[in-house]
Each structure stands twice: as structure tokens, then as C-alpha cells.
């Protein structure tokens, strides 16, 4: 079973040389820590920066240089700043290669719900609807089940949708799955997790074909 860092580490292996990547808040933000340093990747933040670097050293924080999580950041050589319309032009125009974000629910057809729970305070979708409606490659990082133990990989989302038929891959604490026309295709098991455990934890259609390898660590 993976912890949050484990999920981030596994997703980092999906990040290829030459990719522009947008990381959502939460587990996705951790992905940056695990990307191989022999490949070239640039991180985009939708508030208007490309080429994000690590957090600043203490005392070097600049209130005018933040990411979409409102955290102080730095920029790397080759970075650029731009306005919000241009930023979403990058996203909508599919110039960002990979979007990694969290979710409350993912359906077997790739629908995603991650912004609203009816009856609870709704904080808003931020840039998530733009990202999922446009990105060609979307990977969801989340726990396989919610706090009540219920599956978050469903036949159909029960919560208000963020986007339809858009998720390409899901990496959870239990497994790596690809979203196919026929449902969630199980690709890898987390270390120490059996196929049966994954089957039980998945409400949506799970395709198990042949031997399912354990994730490389």
C-alpha cells in the first residue's frame, strides 16, 4: 500500500522528457519532488508562471511570486510570467502535456468529480474545469477509498462533475489503472496489495487481464 509520497513517486514516472506539467494541489504537488533529474520538465502554474522551481530560501520569499496554491515559489532559468488569459490559453490550447490532479470520485468512463459536495461549503472549481476539459493527458492522484471506506472509483460519479470522460489514468494507494472504453484496466498493484483487495475496493468495472505486476519501487 502506498502513502501520499508513494503515489506521487509512482506518478512521477509518467512524467516524460520534454513535458510541460500542471500539478494540482495536494498529492500532485508532491510529484515535483520525484521527477528524475536526467529529464527536462517544466511546471506550469495556472496563476501565470512557467518554469517553477523549489520553494525559496527563508528570507527570500517574494509576495509577487506564488503558485496556484498561493505558496511562495522560485523560478528556474527559462521561466516566464504571463496573465491569466494567456495561462488558460496554454491549457485550453493543449500546450500543457500532462495534468495531474486529485479527485473525490472517478467514473469508469473517465468522468471526474472533485469540486463540490452538495450541502457542504463549496469553495469553487478554480482552474480544474478548464484543465480537465482541455488536457490531453490527465492523471488522477487519490486514495482508492474515502474515509468511510467507500470506493472512489465508481460506475458513475454521484457528486457534481468537474469534467466528462477526461481522466486517462488513476494512481491510488492500491493500484495504477488506465481508463479504457471498457472500464478501469488494472495495470499495477501497489507493493503488498493483492488483486482481490483492489477488486473489492473498486466499485466501477475493473478489467483484470493476465498477471498484474507489482509496482516497481
Amino acid at each position, binding site marked *: 500500500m502506498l502513502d501520499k509520497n508513494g503515489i506521487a513517486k509512482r506518478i512521477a514516472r509518467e512524467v516524460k522528457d520534454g513535458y510541460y506539467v500542471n500539478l494540482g494541489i495536494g498529492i500532485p504537488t508532491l510529484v515535483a519532488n520525484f521527477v528524475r533529474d536526467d529529464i527536462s520538465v517544466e511546471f506550469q*502554474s*495556472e*496563476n*501565470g*508562471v512557467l518554469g517553477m522551481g*523549489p*520553494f*525559496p*530560501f*527563508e*528570507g*527570500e*520569499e*517574494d*509576495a*509577487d*511570486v*506564488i*503558485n*496556484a*496554491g*498561493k*505558496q*511562495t*515559489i522560485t523560478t528556474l532559468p527559462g521561466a516566464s*510570467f*504571463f*496573465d*491569466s*488569459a494567456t*495561462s*488558460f490559453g496554454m*491549457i*485550453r490550447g493543449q500546450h500543457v502535456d500532462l495534468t495531474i490532479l486529485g479527485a473525490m470520485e472517478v467514473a469508469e468512463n473517465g*468522468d471526474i468529480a472533485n469540486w463540490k459536495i452538495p450541502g457542504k*461549503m*463549496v*469553495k*469553487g*472549481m*478554480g*482552474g*480544474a*474545469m*478548464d484543465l480537465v*476539459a*482541455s488536457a490531453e493527458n490527465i492523471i488522477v492522484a487519490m486514495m482508492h477509498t474515502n474515509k468511510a471506506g467507500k470506493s472512489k472509483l465508481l460506475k458513475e460519479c454521484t457528486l*457534481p*462533475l*468537474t*469534467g*466528462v470522460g477526461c481522466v486517462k489514468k488513476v494512481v491510488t494507494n492500491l493500484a495504477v489503472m488506465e481508463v479504457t472504453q471498457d472500464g478501469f484496466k488494472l495495470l499495477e498493484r501497489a507493493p503488498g496489495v493483492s488483486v482481490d483487495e483492489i477488486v473489492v475496493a473498486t466499485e466501477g468495472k475493473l478489467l483484470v487481464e493476465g498477471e498484474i505486476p507489482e509496482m516497481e519501487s
Partner: protein
Amino acid sequence: MIKKTVANVREALEGVSDGMTFMLGGFGLCGIPENAIAQLVTLGIKDITCISNNAGVDDFGLGLLLQEHQIKKMISSYVGENDEFERQMLSGELEVELTPQGTLAEKCRAAQAGFPAFYTPAGYGTEVAEGKETREFDGKMYVLEPAYKADFSFVKAWKGDEAGNLIFKGTARNFNPCMCGAAKITVAEVEELLPAGSLDPNEIHIPGIFVQRIFQGVEYEKRIEQRTVRSRN
């Protein structure tokens, strides 16, 4: 050169009144028009509709207007980080219209550039698209979103000149350029106001034609919401 300078925030906000719709730049507390917000509190005008990506925090940014119950409606993409907001929203005092962030930016840019509406894929198949026209282009579905209409835009820039030309700094740029020229009157406050000719015409982010009034801002707090740092070891 057409001069856009006004003496201070009081002159800059002349003409604002109850019930108006304002655009306010900024992302979180980054790049917000601090002086204009403070003046709106001072003026005490009510029933405002605010188009702003976020709603500030409890004791800063648009939170200051919320405290005084001056805002009737917020149009934003994300409104967390604000307890008073939550209270007013849940009690029904405050109307909230949530809009995808890219759609929000483009609805401003459309108003600036004279486009009545545009098609975006964001929100298709979700409740954001309910009651809106949808349409297929090349096998993909899009939602028709109208341009915003607003009375004033309040933006914050780093440097500006007498002609109203603006240069923004870092990610404090965000929604500010998109909101310039997107309302009937655009008011820019700047950290540094310079004579015309001081800025390189090649480096200007927003030409002065999109700005009606510009003034030297004062006492910027520039608060940091999430101070994240790494150690030097």
C-alpha cells in the same frame, strides 16, 4: 500623450456607487488593488457585485468589504480561506456565482477586446453549463460564455506612467491585464508612477488606452498567504 494621472485614490474612485459591478485583479492576495479596496470600505457603498478570482481572507483583500456587508454578489472561481464569506454564503446574505478560472479570465478579455461571447470546453457536462448554449466543433463540445459587463475595473500594477501604460511584476500580473479596458472605467494603482517616456514601449504589458485613471498607490502590505520556504542546508 493623453494624461491619465489622478492625485489619489479618492479621485480615482469618483463615480462609484451602490449597486455597481466591479472587476478586481489579483490571485489570492497577490496583485490585488489594495488601495482601491480600502477606499471602497471608506466610501461604504453597498450592494456591490465583485468579479474577482478569489474573495480575499477574513481580514484582508475583499474580506474587508465582506466584513462591512458591502458585497451583494461574488463572481469567482475559488472562494476558500474566508470564514466570514462562508457564513454569509450559507446564510443566504451573499450570492455566489462560481465560474471556471479560465472562463473568468476570458470573459474579462472578451469584454476588453469587443467579443460578445466565446466558446470554451470548460464546464461542458457539468452544472456550470446548465441553461447555457452548448455546441460541437470538430467532435468536441463547447459552452457559450458571454463577456462580462462591469462599471469599474480596479487593477494593481508594478510600474505605470502618466499615459496609463502598465507593467506588472511576477505572478502579481494574473487577472489584472485581462481586466484593463474590460469595464467602463479602468482604475490602475501602481507601486511606482513614472513620467511618460520612462517605460520602454517594447516592455509595456498594458497600453494606456485600456486605462482611464492611474494613481500612485501607498502603503502596500502585499501579504503572503502561504509562506513556504526550504532550508539552506
